[in-house]
């Protein structure tokens, strides 16, 4: 077993474990800390997959900005930030649905052809060319979505609206 395989298995185990913990622990602040670990482990997987730009983007946007935004959300909506959630048990139907989805996806994944060679294709110049030429329209669209989201968020939280 190669080092990269071991690293992938470790990071995948951390990702699945922290994602489950994030949704099962009862303190919201602990949830956010677990989800931050989840984002960091995903960024490690991106580095393994020869996508360092995305790995850094994941660290900056998710582990940085999204985590802080979520903590901010907890901070302003609670009187005591470490108060516990009301215990919600694992209800059978959603759990069964998630397990069925998981099994179906695993069966489909197992039926795919194995193994495929990883292409060492990363080149930041080519990526930026692809991003700004071939997918330039998408970037402009993303900018417009972000602008309208900014306006919408300010509209939602402004003071003195009846």
């Amino acid at each position, binding site marked *: 077993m190669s080092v990269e395989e071991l690293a992938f298995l470790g990071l995948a185990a951390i990702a699945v474990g922290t994602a489950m913990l994030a949704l099962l622990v009862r303190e919201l602040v602990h949830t956010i800390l677990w989800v931050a670990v989840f984002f960091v482990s995903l960024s490690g997987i991106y580095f393994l997959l020869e996508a360092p730009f995305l790995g850094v983007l994941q660290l900056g946007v998710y582990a940085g900005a*999204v985590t802080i935004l*979520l903590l901010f959300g907890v901070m302003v*909506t609670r009187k005591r930030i470490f108060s516990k959630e009301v215990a919600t048990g694992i209800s059978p139907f*959603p759990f069964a649905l998630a397990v069925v*989805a998981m099994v179906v996806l695993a069966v489909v994944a197992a039926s795919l052809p194995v*193994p*495929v060679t990883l292409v060492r294709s990363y080149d930041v110049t080519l990526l930026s060319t692809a991003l700004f030429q071939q997918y330039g329209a998408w970037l402009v669209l993303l900018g417009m979505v972000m602008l309208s989201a900014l306006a919408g968020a300010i509209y939602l939280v402004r003071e003195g609206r009846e």
Partner: protein
Amino acid sequence: MTDLSVASFLFLSGALLAIGLFGILTRRNFILLLIAVEIAMNAAILNFVYFAAFAGTSQGLSGQAIAVVLVGLAATEIAVGLAIVLALNRQRGSINVGEATTLKL
């Protein structure tokens, strides 16, 4: 890395999608719901990056470009979601989605 199959990657993103689905269906706190949606969305982004790594150069860079756009979209979604959380908290004094039965703000 050459002997890692596509199936093992797909298995991971399938597991993450199932966890996110479970969270979306069971949690009642709005912030937890947002986190569950983010976990499911990260499973999707992960798929783009895998197939980018296993495809040739030109297709691979397309996959990474799409993933960059998706990361931006997911961050935007969190920002709007938190604005809704704040508005809900001010109006109802609670961020339980079970109590948000009317969409009037």
